[in-house]
């Protein structure tokens, strides 16, 4: 009898998120109702700190993030990333990654791109397979974030401020994801070190 492989949790979660983002996009005025705006937020609509990541401004915006989430989900699955860590990074980055930037600069936040970059940072720093130095990974990640702004800057004649804010939001996400990776990695190292001192600790 043919044995069916269990559908992994990371991919299940990714598909569920993709469906949720698409469904919310189809609901009229969802962006207005759920995006993160200072006025609404400070008037008690605190849920917006999470819900902004589920709504998008337009179809291109949605499509870019769907592709990003799908790719990063597949990479995470291929690299054997823990599903618990992946899901925790998703939600924690949704809430915290753009918060400092959003409090400093006035803009309406919507979309899951900061999460995509947070997950990207979290996942790629865990790559052990190819013996890549962390500095190289970081440079590649930075180019991914700022590539568009650099391209526009070289081309000239364009107002860079919207792109820069967008890139800074992505950068916040990336740094948040890398930070989460190092926190989890350090904690795991600490636990492993402690757990590998059993026999020597007995007199």
């Amino acid at each position, binding site marked *: 009898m043919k044995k069916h492989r269990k559908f992994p949790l990371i991919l299940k979660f990714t598909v569920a998120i993709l469906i949720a983002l698409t469904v919310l996009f189809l609901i009229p005025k969802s962006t207005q109702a759920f995006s993160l705006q200072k006025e609404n937020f400070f008037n008690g609509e605190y849920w917006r700190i999470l819900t902004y990541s589920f709504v998008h401004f337009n179809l291109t915006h949605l499509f870019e993030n769907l592709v990003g989430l799908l790719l990063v989900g597949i990479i995470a699955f291929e690299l054997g990333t823990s599903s618990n860590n992946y899901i925790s990074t998703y939600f924690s980055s949704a809430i915290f990654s753009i918060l400092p930037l959003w409090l400093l600069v006035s803009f309406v936040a919507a979309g899951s791109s900061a999460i995509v970059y947070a997950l990207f940072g979290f996942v790629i720093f865990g790559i052990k397979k190819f013996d890549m130095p962390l500095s190289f990974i970081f440079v590649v990640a930075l180019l991914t974030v700022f590539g568009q702004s650099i391209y526009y800057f070289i081309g000239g004649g364009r107002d860079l401020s919207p792109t820069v804010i967008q890139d800074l939001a992505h950068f916040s996400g990336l740094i948040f994801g890398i930070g989460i990776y190092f926190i989890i990695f350090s904690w795991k190292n600490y636990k*492993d070190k402690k*757990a590998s001192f059993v026999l020597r600790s*007995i007199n």
Partner: protein
Amino acid sequence: MEERVGSGVKGLDFMLKGGFIGGRNILLSGPAGSGKSTLALQFLYDGALSREKVLYVTLEESKDKIIQDMSKFGLNLEAMRKSGSLIMIGGPVAQVTNTMERVDANIYNIINEIEIVIKENNIKRVVIDSINLLTMLVESDGERRMALSTLSNTLSSLGCTSIMISETEEGTMKLSRYGIEEFIVDCVIVLYLVRQGSIFVPGVAIRKMRGSNHDKEIRVLKITDKGVVVYPEETMFGKI
């Protein structure tokens, strides 16, 4: 030609056609009181006498008790320990399991710890006494096999000649507790306690040795005041 490592028991070396093959894993099994720990410690003592660094991992008895018991066989483990050639880690089973629970350690952490000690001290011979606790830490045979295989590969990759002790039930012809250990190792030595009238007669047999010819008979073994002695010319059961 492969390097041969003395077992510390002349008669056994004769049965092994010159000793264990260096860098291989040996399963030493038998019922309680058959001389497993004594034989394994003689193997380590032999290495320490040749200025090799050796490691004894106890997962059942306290180190002090082992040192005290072995001194009766003329094995001065304390002196070896002080000189740094013998390293002893572990302790009584209850203490090991309690510490493991406290720090949330699993079988792979224990294997990792053994690996760290071997690397840090350039160990050449290892005895794990016994692997029964390790095999009890996992539930399924599949996991057990995987864990033992990891341990065995780790020890081999570090170039150690290692003895893993397994306690078997009395009166059984099984080679190990779970019946999987013998498939993972390169060599299996079984100690027997055969009842003859009102006494138990100890014996030893080599049941498996990859890459080498070996003696096939069950030979007489005695636990004397000099430790385990094997009589490679004497068979346990006379031919009728």
